[in-house]
């Protein structure tokens, strides 16, 4: 059913359509409305168990326990909340628990900032969680059932990353899948080794030097294997709804000589500029990196071979090159591509069409590495 509704609220509907067993959240901007909505669903009896916890560390820890006991679990956070989860994020992945989390991407302190960039999730890219980035709320709504599908098949947790405020607070038309459709797509959850007093096991315990690396090698191999399942889930979802998904989304890339690449909502702006410049006869394209983990290295190399590529990073690795740029540059090494790095748009400084036009212009010349110099919002300039 098509609804005109605020992002955070419709994301809760998509999550509940997956028939959650246990939810534990600690509210934080920009996903507070999502938490509110989940609370309402609990009050209405559509979520059997909702744990009000004292912090994000507890939220994810509670879900680690619930997931190990065989429950389908969901939570939401963003920014500082996600950073506070950092340690248990590794545990959830290492214990092979298919938890799904909706992250409202938010800048991190300090200085304190509640607006959007992708620093929070980029900083969690090594935790062993699958990361799906969404350009708009429709993609986010569609990605939640797919996230459970993939997580429960490969037994790794999934982060669905949605730009805070730009998407979480945006009111737009979204086709909300009903519970029946989702249930037809998503098989019931059955953790193969659940915590059970009749058959006691310890999960997430100590591993000697003899065994530790073996487990890590297994996670690495399965993360790689998750690519196939992500594609399978995207195709299956496409058959049901007409909206198919893959690891990357290439828009007019095939014959393009210049391509901009990024994650998240900024890519919808890039697509608009691509249409505009194509009308003027310029051969430009847009590539959305939908899945950052597992990193679709081969798909990127195939799509962008020999092109002038600009990577927009709305995140940093302070003291080194921009994180997404580095990975794209590595994937395109020896492929005759010229890769530029544009970083900025941090803490709510929007990367608008006017800036994207400039970036496409800059791509014409040699490879560059530079800040995206966006103007501060007008209100700030008055003071």
């Amino acid at each position, binding site marked *: 059913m098509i609804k005109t509704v605020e992002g955070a609220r419709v994301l809760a509907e998509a999550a509940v359509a997956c028939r959650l067993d246990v939810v534990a959240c600690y509210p934080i901007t920009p996903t507070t409305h999502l938490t509110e909505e989940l609370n309402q669903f609990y009050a209405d009896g559509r979520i059997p168990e909702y744990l009000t916890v004292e912090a994000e560390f507890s939220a994810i820890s509670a879900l680690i326990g619930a997931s190990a006991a065989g429950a389908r679990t969901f939570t939401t956070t963003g920014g500082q909340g996600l950073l506070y989860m950092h340690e248990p994020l590794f545990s959830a992945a*290492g214990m*092979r628990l298919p938890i799904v989390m909706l992250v409202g991407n938010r800048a991190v302190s300090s200085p304190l900032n509640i607006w959007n960039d992708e620093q929070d999730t980029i900083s969690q890219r090594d935790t062993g969680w699958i990361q799906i980035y969404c350009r708009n709320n429709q993609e986010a709504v569609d990605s939640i059932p797919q996230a459970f599908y993939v997580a429960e098949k490969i*037994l790794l947790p999934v982060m669905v990353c949605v730009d805070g405020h730009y998407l979480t607070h945006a009111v737009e038309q979204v086709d909300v899948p009903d519970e029946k459709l989702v249930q037809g797509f998503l098989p019931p959850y059955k953790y193969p080794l659940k915590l059970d007093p009749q058959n006691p096991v310890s*999960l997430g315990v100590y591993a000697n030097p003899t065994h530790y690396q*073996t487990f890590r090698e297994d996670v690495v191999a*399965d993360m790689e294997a998750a690519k196939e399942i992500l594609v399978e889930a995207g195709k299956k979802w496409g058959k049901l709804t007409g909206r198919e998904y893959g690891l990357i989304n290439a828009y007019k890339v095939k014959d393009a000589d210049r391509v901009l690449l990024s994650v998240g909502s900024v890519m919808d702006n890039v697509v608009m500029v691509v249409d505009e410049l194509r009308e003027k006869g310029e051969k430009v394209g847009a590539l959305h990196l939908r899945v950052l983990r597992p990193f679709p290295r081969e798909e990127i190399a195939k799509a962008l071979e020999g092109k002038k590529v600009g990577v927009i990073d709305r995140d940093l690795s302070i003291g080194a090159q921009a994180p997404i740029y580095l990975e794209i540059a590595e994937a395109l090494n020896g492929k005759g591509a010229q890769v530029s790095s544009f970083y900025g748009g941090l803490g709510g400084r929007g990367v608008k069409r006017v800036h994207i036009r400039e970036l496409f212009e800059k791509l014409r010349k040699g490879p560059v590495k530079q800040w995206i110099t966006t103007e501060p919002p007008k209100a700030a300039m008055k003071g």
Partner: protein
Amino acid sequence: MIIPHAKPGTSVQNITGEWKAYMPVVNGDKCIKCGICQNFCPEGIMGEVKRIPEIDYEYCKGCSVCANECPVKCIEMRRVEQD
């Protein structure tokens, strides 16, 4: 796909003896069988009291508590050579 887990009682499979840099060696002639080392050993791997200690080197981590506590200093901590 492996789910890392442990069944009850399986921690004994974690052989900790390879951690040690020094191993305790008991001089049986000097030992007075007082039982202090056996009671102090954090791993409980020095055998029964009132007998000369029989050390289980598979689990001895080489912590030196026994040598430190021995009233007659009959336990020598000897360097373990590793590859």
